[in-house]
């Protein structure tokens, strides 16, 4: 008995000595380990800034969401895994077999059932009190309008890194700064508030206000959808821009995709064709070459050219018109869109002059709009031009353009010759409400004089009049100036007679300084009539008709008078 007591005493003394050693002795490494165990460090996620339209409607926002997690071993231990699996599958709208397969893993303690579930759904599951089911909170990017303006807004990936559109281009502004909280935690791993030694709150990223108008964007997308359905087209895209300021009010490209489901979209759906698809423009390009010839005083609107009844051999190669024409004035060459007339007009200029004008109009280089993935188009260096090039470039062949480049050129023609950089950003505002950046019209170049611009406005207005190629683009009560374009697509090295790109670009009211310009392109429309005037013209009219009412742009032609204009309006200049 005494022996036991003695041993116990010795053990207690050893224990006491160890306690003294632990508390008093040099145990820095041990203390560090204890401190580390107690240390509570919480990295506070930074909310990403919002993306809004020009009127403050939210297009992209960070929302708190929940991941639904299961502990399969606990679910199986509950004795009712089938019930739990079926309930989860029903509420989350998942395949029950898939949920059961995830739950039926006895050796696992952690399985995601579904990630990024809205709070409402998570609350519904929580109320069911399913054993072994828990949640963790995550911040996820949400796009309330779904597919609306998907190519402009872009998307942020699962790591919250902007990967397309504005999300990508302005990621550094949008992302914000994470916060940090350093403290100690108790036995239940909860933070002990009065041990908090550092608390840096997170900084929300800047909000970006776009020049896009949500409602106008919707109208444009709807008009394009109808056009695709009507003509069984491969795609369609359109841009609406304010001529004077370069602000883009709408930019749509179809087919699009739902931004909340961007992972299921393919690369073609993700392509913003308005800036990323290079095509041969066809007759819309005549606006640039004829404006150059007029600006150079090489031709006058009244000057007559022989359009050879629809077929002209130049350097041994035929050049054809869609409709045969005889003698046409320069004004009528534009109105009736004669390829032969346009070629003859362009041939009055030297190659270097034509190249200088085309580069001044912005061809061969990106416009500089604040979107990633903008193509610069194709305008070969003059040294690579052949003897035929000038006659082909005149009608929009041998060049590659984007819709935005074409619209930018048209805006310069409409805007007294001033080319303004197109912009899609209105302003950037930080979390405290300070404006970081405000977009202002940025003058780029003046390819043509103001007088030539005024003349071109008059000539282009005739295109939508009776006898012009763009009558279907006319809008009652407004003078619409524009140009049709139909280009055959080059497939496997030769032009296809079946696949073409139909386009219409125009602005209205032609003489109003607050005019808007619209570009519509329809890719590979089907049917007997696939010209720009037939296919893209009505889409233009539909967009323009609604846009002028929505933007409250007053008409410039009395309704009773219709679209009838006086003949030869350039004579008044």
């Amino acid at each position: 008995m005494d022996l036991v007591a003695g041993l116990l005493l010795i053990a207690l003394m050893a224990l006491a000595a160890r306690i003294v050693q632990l508390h008093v002795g040099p145990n820095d490494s041990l203390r560090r380990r204890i401190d580390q165990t107690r240390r509570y460090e919480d990295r506070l996620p930074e909310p990403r800034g919002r993306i809004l339209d020009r009127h403050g409607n939210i297009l992209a926002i960070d929302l708190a969401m929940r991941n639904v997690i299961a502990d399969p071993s606990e679910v199986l231990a509950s004795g009712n895994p089938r019930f739990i699996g079926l309930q989860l599958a029903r509420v989350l709208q998942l395949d029950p077999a898939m949920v059961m397969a995830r739950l039926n893993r006895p050796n696992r303690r952690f399985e995601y059932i579904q990630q990024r579930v809205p709070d409402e759904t998570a609350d519904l599951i929580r109320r069911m009190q399913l054993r072994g089911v828990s949640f963790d909170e995550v911040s996820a990017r949400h796009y309330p309008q779904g597919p609306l303006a998907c190519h402009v807004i872009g998307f942020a990936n699962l790591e919250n890194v902007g990967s397309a559109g504005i999300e990508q281009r302005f990621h550094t502004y949008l992302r914000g700064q994470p916060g940090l909280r350093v403290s100690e935690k108790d036995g239940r791993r909860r933070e002990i508030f009065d041990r908090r030694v550092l608390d840096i709150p997170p900084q929300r990223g800047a909000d970006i206000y776009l020049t896009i108008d949500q409602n106008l964007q919707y109208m444009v997308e709807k008009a394009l959808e109808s056009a695709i359905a009507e003509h069984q087209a491969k795609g369609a895209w359109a841009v609406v821009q304010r001529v004077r300021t370069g602000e883009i009010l709408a930019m749509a490209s179809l087919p699009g995709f739902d931004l909340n489901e961007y992972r299921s979209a393919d690369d073609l759906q993700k392509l913003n064709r308005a800036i990323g698809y290079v095509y041969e423009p066809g007759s819309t390009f005549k606006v640039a070459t004829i404006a150059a010839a007029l600006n150079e005083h090489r031709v006058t609107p009244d000057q007559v050219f022989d359009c050879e009844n629809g077929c002209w051999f130049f350097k041994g190669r035929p050049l054809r018109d869609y409709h045969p024409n005889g003698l046409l004035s320069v004004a009528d060459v534009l109105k009736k869109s004669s390829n032969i007339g346009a070629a003859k007009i362009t041939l009055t200029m030297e190659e270097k002059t034509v190249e200088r004008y085309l580069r001044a109009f912005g061809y061969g280089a990106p416009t500089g709009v604040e979107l990633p993935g903008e193509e610069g188009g194709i305008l070969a260096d003059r040294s690579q031009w052949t003897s035929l090039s000038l006659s082909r470039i005149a009608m929009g062949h041998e060049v590659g353009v984007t819709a935005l480049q074409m619209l930018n050129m048209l805006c310069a023609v409409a805007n007294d010759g001033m080319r303004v950089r197109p912009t899609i950003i209105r302003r950037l505002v930080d979390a405290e409400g300070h404006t970081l950046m405000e977009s202002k019209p940025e003058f780029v170049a003046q390819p043509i004089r103001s007088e030539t611009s005024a003349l071109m406005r008059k000539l282009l207005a005739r295109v939508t009049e009776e006898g012009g190629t763009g009558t279907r683009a006319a809008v009652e009560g407004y003078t619409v100036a524009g140009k049709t374009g139909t280009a055959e697509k080059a497939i496997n090295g030769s032009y296809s007679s079946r696949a073409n790109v139909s386009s219409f670009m125009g602005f209205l009211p032609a003489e109003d300084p607050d005019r808007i310009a619209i570009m519509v392109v329809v890719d590979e429309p089907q049917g007997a009539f696939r010209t720009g005037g037939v296919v893209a013209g009505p889409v233009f009219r539909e967009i323009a008709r609604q846009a002028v009412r929505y933007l409250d742009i007053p008409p410039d032609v009395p309704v009773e008078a219709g679209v009838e204009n006086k003949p030869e309006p350039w004579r008044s200049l």
Partner: protein
Amino acid sequence: MRRRKRQNRKTIQEGSPFPMSLALILVLVTGLAFGYLWLRDQCDTTGRRLQELESRRGDLQRQILREESKWSNLKSAKNLEQLMAQFHLAMVWPGEQYTKRLSRPELEPEAAAEMQYAQRELATRHD
């Protein structure tokens, strides 16, 4: 008669056997200890309250964002169109003949400021 035993004056104790100063110190120390514990408890309570409020603020901020998102969705053109279809309503733009455009009236100087504000509102709505 027994003689009363006389008490030795040297052994007589005067005052309390527990020194008053010591008692005071003990009371003070006890008071301080209790005060410390009370303050500690108050700190803990306030800390927990602050944490709750922090959490509540976070929840409210998240709720605001959710509501903003919902509101944005509700007032979108697509949603309005769907609702109109649901209730069999149809809307068209009014014809130009039904639209009356008002020209800017001649204003008294006093009324000018108010007009400018109205114009600013108009510009925001339609710009």
